[in-house]
């Protein structure tokens, strides 16, 4: 498998019905956790789902999905499959201790490879776990992938909300519909059912209201989430009856509803010269 120059034109993914990007302005808000559990929740709703790890520099999907081995790009069939999801990540090609010290064009090349040269087959949803920020990876995907929309992940603090706003603005500028904002690490529920909003309350909701985009819900804090991620068995898969898993199932239903509203813009017309 050889990376070609990134195609400037939009990539056709004929078997993939919907491509959903999971993004945030800020790192560390749980984007990969949300992307993985959202993908698994969509799968639990009976959909065919792929998960593409677009974080070339710091891929998290291999550890979260318990894939420890690495292979040569030509060493096996792609994508991998785990817990019913089709998976692709740079971490399947590069050992965890190797740092990818690349400039933007290389990131663009490999993302294009992941989209064009991996036989994703028939999927209802391809969930893309974006790296944080508004840089090369985001631009490449918004310029080339047929995105149905983006889910913005934030935590309740202002320091995250301010960057989530930048992410929102980026998608607005490149005319990719924002399906909504999900607030991760929203509250901690004690056994008596009381919710403790440790990092402030309703910041995500206010941001959604200000930006006139749907608020997709709150995901509670639960130490089991991190434990499950590190052990390679995401909480939606391992504890499907937990409150967090229920929040993800609700999120998956809401995302599916927003995608079904058909917000994906028509492709722009071309002109042969």
């Amino acid at each position, binding site marked *: 498998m050889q990376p070609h120059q990134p195609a400037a034109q939009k990539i056709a993914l004929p078997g993939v019905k919907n491509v959903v990007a999971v993004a945030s302005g800020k790192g560390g808000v749980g984007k990969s956790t949300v992307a993985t559990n959202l993908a698994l929740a969509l799968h639990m709703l009976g959909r065919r789902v792929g998960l593409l790890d677009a974080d070339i520099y710091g891929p998290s999907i291999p550890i979260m999905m318990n894939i420890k081995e690495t292979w040569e790009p030509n060493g096996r069939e792609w994508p991998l499959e785990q817990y019913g999801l089709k998976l692709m990540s740079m971490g399947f090609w590069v050992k965890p201790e190797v740092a990818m010290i690349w400039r933007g064009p290389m990131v663009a090349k490999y993302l294009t490879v992941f989209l064009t040269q991996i036989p994703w087959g028939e999927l209802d949803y391809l969930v893309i776990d974006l790296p944080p920020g508004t840089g090369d990876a985001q631009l490449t995907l918004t*310029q080339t992938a047929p995105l149905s929309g983006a889910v913005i992940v934030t935590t309740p603090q202002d320091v995250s909300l301010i960057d989530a706003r930048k992410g929102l603005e980026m998608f*607005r500028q*490149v*005319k990719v519909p924002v399906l909504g904002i999900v607030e991760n690490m929203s509250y901690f529920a004690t056994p008596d059912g009381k919710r403790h909003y440790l990092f402030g309350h309703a910041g995500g909701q206010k941001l959604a209201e200000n930006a006139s*985009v749907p608020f997709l819900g709150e995901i509670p804090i639960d130490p089991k989430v991190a434990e499950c991620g590190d052990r390679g068995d995401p909480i939606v898969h391992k504890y499907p009856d937990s409150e967090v898993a229920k929040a993800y199932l609700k999120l998956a239903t809401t995302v599916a509803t927003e995608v079904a509203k058909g*917000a994906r*813009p028509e*492709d722009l*017309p071309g*002109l042969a010269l």
Partner: protein
Amino acid sequence: MSSQTPRPTNLAKDGDDKLIISWSDGLRTTHTWQNLRNNCPCASCREERLKPPDPFRILKPSELVPLNPVQIEPVGYYAYKITWSDGHDTGIFTLELLRELAEK
């Protein structure tokens, strides 16, 4: 939000020197290729335009032959990229910019 911005519904050539864009709000805009190139939004062209005019500037050979677009292609849902006969292809013309650049 993004759906409020009018979108091109059709692109057409008018002779050799003009591009006509039909928009979803019914507007039709005319653009000479020369004007598009003069307003190329790429970083190097923008920087060039910010420099004070140099009366002693020597024309490059590429500036002596007529400039033509060789390709215009959509970029995502939000812009067009034009490749010119001199090889220049770094300008990404957003839909908003194309509306602004319409010939009055």
